[in-house]
Structure formats: C-alpha cells, structure tokens
C-alpha cells in the first residue's frame, strides 16, 4: 500500500532549527530538540507557547516554515501525515461518531491495507480494558472511556512515536490522576516513544522522564522533572514548575565550591554549582517547602534569615502555609509539613527562617520575577 509507513523508520526524534510563523505571529522559534527513542517526553508550557504547534508539525498536520524533522536517519519534514509512522491522541479525542468503537480502532490498520484486523484490535481493547464496548458508538461512552479508546486507536498501529495533545484536559481530577498512571503504564508496556503536550506542570512531572519547558516558541530548559524543579535556570521555569521565593542579592566572594552572597544584609552560602548567573547582581531562589520556620532564638542549621513577622497562616491539611514579612518589606512564602516539626505560631509572631544551602538556586539579577506566573499571580 502506498501509504504504509516503513517500520524501519524508528529511532530518536530530532527537531532541527524548526520554525513556524503564522502571518504576523512567530509560534515556534528556531527549535532544536532531541527526543530519545522509548522515552516519555513532555512539552510543557502556558497556552500560546508553541507546544501544540510543535506537536502538529511532528504529526504532519502543520507545515514548518523552516527547519527539519528527523526520525532516526529519515527526514520526515516533507512527508505527508498519512505516511508518517506517527499517531496522535487528540485533545477532544476526535473519535469518528459514525463508526463503532471497533471500527474506530481498526481505522488506521485498514487504511494501511491490513486485512486481518480482528486480532490486533481485540488485543489493544483488552489492554485498555474496554473490549466489551467494541460495538458501541463513541457518543455512548463516557469521557474517560473515549480517552482510552483514542489511545487504543493510536497505539494499535505500533507507531514509532505517539503524540498526545493535552489528552487529559477534559477529565475531572480523580479520573485525570487515574489516566496519568494508566498512560505511564501503557508506555512502559508498549515501549513506544510518547510525546505529551500539557500546560499542567504536575501532570508533566508525574508522567514524563524528560520535560522541555517552552515559552514563546523557544525551549527555556530541558531536563528530568527533578532537575527542572530543583535546579531551574530561568525565573520562568522556577515559577512555572511549583512556586519560588526570589530575593535580590549580591555575590560577594567565591571559595572553592562555595559562594558567599549578601542577601539583603545577611551573609549566606550557596554551592557555586547552583548559581547559573555570571553577574554580581543575583536573584536568589528558595522554594517554599525548603524553608524551616522557627521561634526567635531557636538553634538553626544551614543559612538563616532573621527578623521575619508572620502575616498570614493557612492550614491546608497536609501542610501549613505561612506568609512572612521580612525586614526589607518582602513577603516570603513558607510551606511546613504538618508532622509536628514546626512550632505553634500565630499571626504577628516574630520568626527566624532557615534552609539548607544546597536547596538554593541563583539566577541573573535582571531576570523578570513575574515570568512564568499565571494570570492573577502575576499581578
């Protein structure tokens, strides 16, 4: 069959200087990316950052303005979507309403000229545990069921690459969590490279081996979830993944693997490896959960900041969240797990903050503190 994708086209996915320009809007800006074969890869970013456009270009549903797409040694850039060994799970599933579930799943196989579809279709329906729905129509299924069929319809074709375009967006929280686990399981079972596009940082961190954080058509940072979370290289990444406290500081001196920083009058130490800035003026970042909160006078270890006043306390079940105003009039956010470790505090109490130096990260002083914050937070 003319449109049978060659099974030999497997390997790493490589995007090379990939650019997409719409009329007056640059959606994807000179993107270079390698996605290793067999990994679960996430493209994470806010809406409009170019992640969906990138995905569509990989699928062949959008033509790049310039740049190349390689799968292994094969150049896919000019290949039509129906000739690529790539399948997509669409955001709203795009199940064919006029076909049964069985025929939906068999669609790709039939178009490739495969005569005996029963066995592979039944196998993949068993994998998603929906074999009993094979004769129904998509409108008769719940959202979660439709989602699993959309996945089944894609993976039955054993593509080299499976693309997922925010597939869990339409599901409620509990179902979403369940599907995250299931998708991860399917990926390890089947071994196909998954490329998952999402704006939900928790989702990306839960499911992916590697995340590329995108912003305004470019990749801000690429790495494992832990890597990106603990060691963000830009304010955008620091704010987009979890939350951060940023305090302005100045680099004073370096001594071997340690650096000494003047943080609003207090001297703190950070590992040189955690400082990604080359300037003297720094933005020092500490995640809220890394802080420890103490009564004034208690013994502390690691770095210390004194003179804080508690301005707000929120009990959130698992943790207690504190807002603490520091002498330089900045409010810091602290999360303490409710395991009995933190003292019993009230609003207005004076406190001291401490944290372990290796949890600090430092960025360029002129980074935009609000970058990566969503909507109301950015005010």
């Amino acid at each position, binding site marked *: 069959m*003319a*449109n*049978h*994708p060659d099974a030999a086209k497997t390997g790493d996915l490589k995007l090379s200087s990939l650019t997409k320009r719409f009329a007056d809007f640059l959606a994807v800006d000179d993107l270079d990316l390698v996605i290793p074969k067999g990994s679960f890869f996430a493209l994470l970013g806010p809406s409009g950052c170019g992640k969906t456009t990138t995905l569509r270009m990989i*699928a*062949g*549903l959008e033509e790049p303005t310039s740049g190349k797409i390689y799968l292994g040694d094969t150049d896919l850039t000019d290949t*039509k*979507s*129906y*000739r690529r060994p*790539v*399948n*997509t799970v*669409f955001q*709203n599933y*795009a*199940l*064919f*309403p*006029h076909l049964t579930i069985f025929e939906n799943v068999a*669609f*790709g196989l039939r*178009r*490739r000229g495969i005569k005996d579809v029963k066995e592979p279709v039944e196998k993949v329906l068993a994998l998603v545990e929906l074999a*009993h*729905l094979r004769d129904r*129509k998509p*409108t*008769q*299924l*719940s959202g979660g069921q439709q989602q699993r069929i959309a996945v089944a*319809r*894609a993976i039955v*074709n054993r593509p080299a690459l499976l693309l997922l375009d925010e597939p869990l967006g339409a599901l409620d929280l509990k179902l979403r969590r369940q599907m995250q686990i299931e998708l991860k399981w399917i990926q390890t079972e089947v071994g196909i490279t998954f490329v998952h596009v999402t704006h939900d940082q928790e989702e990306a961190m839960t499911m992916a081996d590697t995340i590329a954080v995108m912003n305004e058509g470019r990749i801000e940072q690429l790495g494992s979830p832990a890597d990106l979370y603990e060691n963000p290289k830009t304010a955008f990444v620091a704010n987009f993944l979890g939350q951060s406290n940023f305090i302005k500081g100045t680099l004073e001196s370096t001594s071997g693997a340690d650096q000494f920083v003047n943080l609003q009058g207090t001297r703190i130490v950070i590992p040189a490896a955690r400082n990604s800035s080359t300037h003297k003026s720094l933005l020092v970042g500490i995640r809220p959960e890394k802080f420890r909160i103490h009564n004034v006078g208690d013994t502390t270890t690691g770095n210390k900041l004194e003179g804080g006043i508690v301005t707000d306390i929120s009990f959130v079940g698992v943790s207690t969240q504190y807002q603490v105003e520091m002498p330089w009039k900045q409010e810091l956010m602290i999360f303490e797990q409710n395991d009995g470790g933190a003292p019993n505090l009230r609003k207005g109490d004076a406190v001291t903050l401490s944290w372990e130096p290796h949890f600090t990260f430092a960025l360029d002083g002129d980074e935009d503190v609000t970058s990566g914050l969503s909507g109301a937070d950015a005010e």
Partner: protein
Amino acid sequence: MTRWLSKNLIRIYAALAFIYLFIPVAYTMAFSFNDSGKRNLIWQGFTFKNWLNPCGAPEVCTALGNSIKIGFLATLFSTILGTMIAFALGRYSFRGRSTTNLLIFLPMATPEIVLGASLLAMFLNLGINPGFWTTVIAHVMFCISFVVVTVKARIASLDPKLEEAARDLYATEWQTFRRVTLPLVAPGIAAAALLAFSLSFDDFIITNFNSGTVNTFPKFVWVSSARGVPAQANVIGSAMFLIALAIVISAQIFSAAKARRLQKKH
C-alpha cells in the same frame, strides 16, 4: 385561572396558528372526497371514487408524471453541482470567495418572475423552444443556491479535527473524504436533495415561463382554476401531503429511536 391563561397564552395562540395553517389543506383534502363533476366548487356528497380513480381527469396524471420526472432530474443535477460548490466554499481557500458567495446569493434574491422571464427570453433568442429540458435547466438553476446553503451549513458543523485524525491514521485525502467526511455530511446532502425536490415540484412561476406546452402539476392546477379544479387534483395534492408527512414523521421516529438506543450507557 388567569394565571394559567397568562402562562399558556402563547401556547393557545400557537394552536390557533396551526389550525389556521391547516385550513386550506383540510379543505383540499375534504373536497377530494367530493362527488363533483368537473368543477368541484360545491359540496355534493361524499365519495371514494376520486381516490380510486386519481387519473380520471384528463391531463392530470401526465402533468403529475412530468412534475416527478423534472423534479428527479433537477434534484439530481442541482444536488451534485451544489454539493461540489459547498465543499469548495467550506473546505478550501481560494480567490474569488466573495464573488462566489454573491453569485450563489443573487438567484435567491431575484424575484421568480425575473428569473423565469429572462431565461425564456434567452431561449427564444437562441431559437430554442421552451419544453421539458428547458424546464429542467431552469429548475437546476434556482435549486443550486439552496443546495449550497444547506450543505455548507452541515459542513461547517463538522469538526475539522476528525479529518485530521483520519490523516493521522494513514488515510489519504481521498480516503479521508470517502470514509469520514462524506458519511458525516450525507444527512445535509439528503436534506438538500429533499429541499430541491420540493422546490422543483411546487414551482409555478419559473416553470410557467419555461415549459412551453409541457404540463406540470402546478401548471395544471393553474390552468384548470379558471374552469374549476377537478377533484382528482385534490386527491393528488392530498396524497403528496400524506406521503411526504409519512416520510418526515417516520424519519423523526427513526432518529428518535436511534437517539434513545444510544442514550443507554453502561
């Protein structure tokens, strides 16, 4: 009591409006049972004989036959041509879109008398005598616009992601069209065809100008209205009404039953 009245005033009005809509239909049906002679103006007695002999009046069945033949041909051509245009407008970008839209809109905005008269004048100028095929040509002409509008609306409601999904699943452009687009647009095309047939069958003004000596059912009624429309015409009119009503209602029941079946989820 007044509360009930004010809440249901509009429903009562609607009922009256429906009665008003059906008065001439009821009258036509009633007089199809009239034991009349040729004139059928005054009630003379109840009889089935008109229904048993619907072709009894001269010319009436020839006219009906012509109307059906013309209707079928006009529907066939206008549906094909109109659907093609609808797809071009709904799925492709091209230069001249607004001109095309205007060209489709104009016949619907032109009075039938102008459409009919101008076409007749052109035929006469070319030395073509009006007859069966000139009527078909005229009907196709005015039906195309309605087909385009109907099918275009259906295409617009089609999720483009479905066609993308098909291409993602190895379907070529032709396979996508055949296996996904066409089945989903089909109801719109069917509706357009039905619309075209009813417009063609019931057309009088344009037909009157362009059919020459060929008789159609509306023409027959018009001509015989001077002398008195024979009861057989009433029979045919009523029969058409009942058949069409039966088709539409059974289609409704069918799709409602289908919807009810689909509602059962597990």
